């Protein structure tokens, strides 16, 4: 499947720096609500919602770097994905971008099970 690189729509200012708490996803992350952005190399980066309240996706990668997927993810323990969606005002990625995110997360150690909610929102 060809990947689509999404430029920032909301807040495309290249002066925004990457948030210092932005992290590559790993199963060691504490449970909680995160936003995620997958860069064009397929790596999924996350930022806890509490670290950047409200408007957050633009600082996950920073510098207006494009993404192949972006949205919200709720993590459980040990890398379990409880919920994921493609809601991002900054990138407004299409629903099929979630497939790319799922692949990236699995590669980085995420665990999906039958209880994982995958919610698609039309862009």
């Amino acid at each position, binding site marked *: 499947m060809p990947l689509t690189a999404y430029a920032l729509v*909301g*807040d495309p200012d290249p002066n925004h720096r990457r948030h210092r708490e932005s992290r590559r996803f790993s199963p060691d992350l504490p449970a909680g609500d995160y936003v995620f952005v997958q860069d064009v190399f397929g790596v999924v980066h996350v930022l806890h919602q509490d670290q950047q*309240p409200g408007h957050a996706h633009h600082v996950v990668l920073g510098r207006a770097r494009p993404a192949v997927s972006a949205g919200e993810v709720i993590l459980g323990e040990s890398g379990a994905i409880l919920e994921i969606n493609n809601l991002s*005002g*900054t990138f407004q990625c299409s629903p099929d971008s979630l497939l790319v995110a799922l692949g990236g997360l699995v590669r980085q150690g995420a665990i999906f099970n039958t209880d994982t909610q995958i919610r698609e929102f039309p862009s």
Partner: protein
Amino acid sequence: MTPLTKPDRKVICRIQLAGEGRWVRLALSLGGLASVSCFLVRSEPLLYEMAGVDERARGYGFSNWQGGVISGARYAFRALKVPIQQVCLHELRGQLNSGDVWVVSSAAALAVARLLARPVEFPLNLNGWTIEERVSQPPSAEGVSESGKADSSPPEPRKEGAENNSLLSGNTGTGGTQDLPVKPEVADRPPD
């Protein structure tokens, strides 16, 4: 008996944030859970008139500012741990810099919290901008269309206080993330 309000009329929350000579006003209502497949929809008519203050912002279109609405609304649902509902945008006006998308986001988060009749118990960045808010029924079919004529100046604070309307002004001080000291005054909401 003639009902004074059509039962299908939605409650609209209008939030205005102003600071540093710039301002934004947006009005939102919520849809049902069943219609959540599309998170953000535009009302018809939509009052849209955004003016960019700096060069970059002058190049921004609806999609750019809409990004702030989506960001703020989704954040409010998540922070309040409320299932996502569809959000309908009725009005988006203002004069902002390119770096002010966060202001739109904060206004949207405030509006969603008010529409859910929930106190703003989540951190929100306001950077000292002042808040005015009003919760009301939508106006009758006298709205201005997307390309319509709208007053581009920030409106004066309204003083009327109808039963279902609330209008709050508050300066939340300077600094970064902060809890809002304002109290929602939506009808049927228990006191904080």
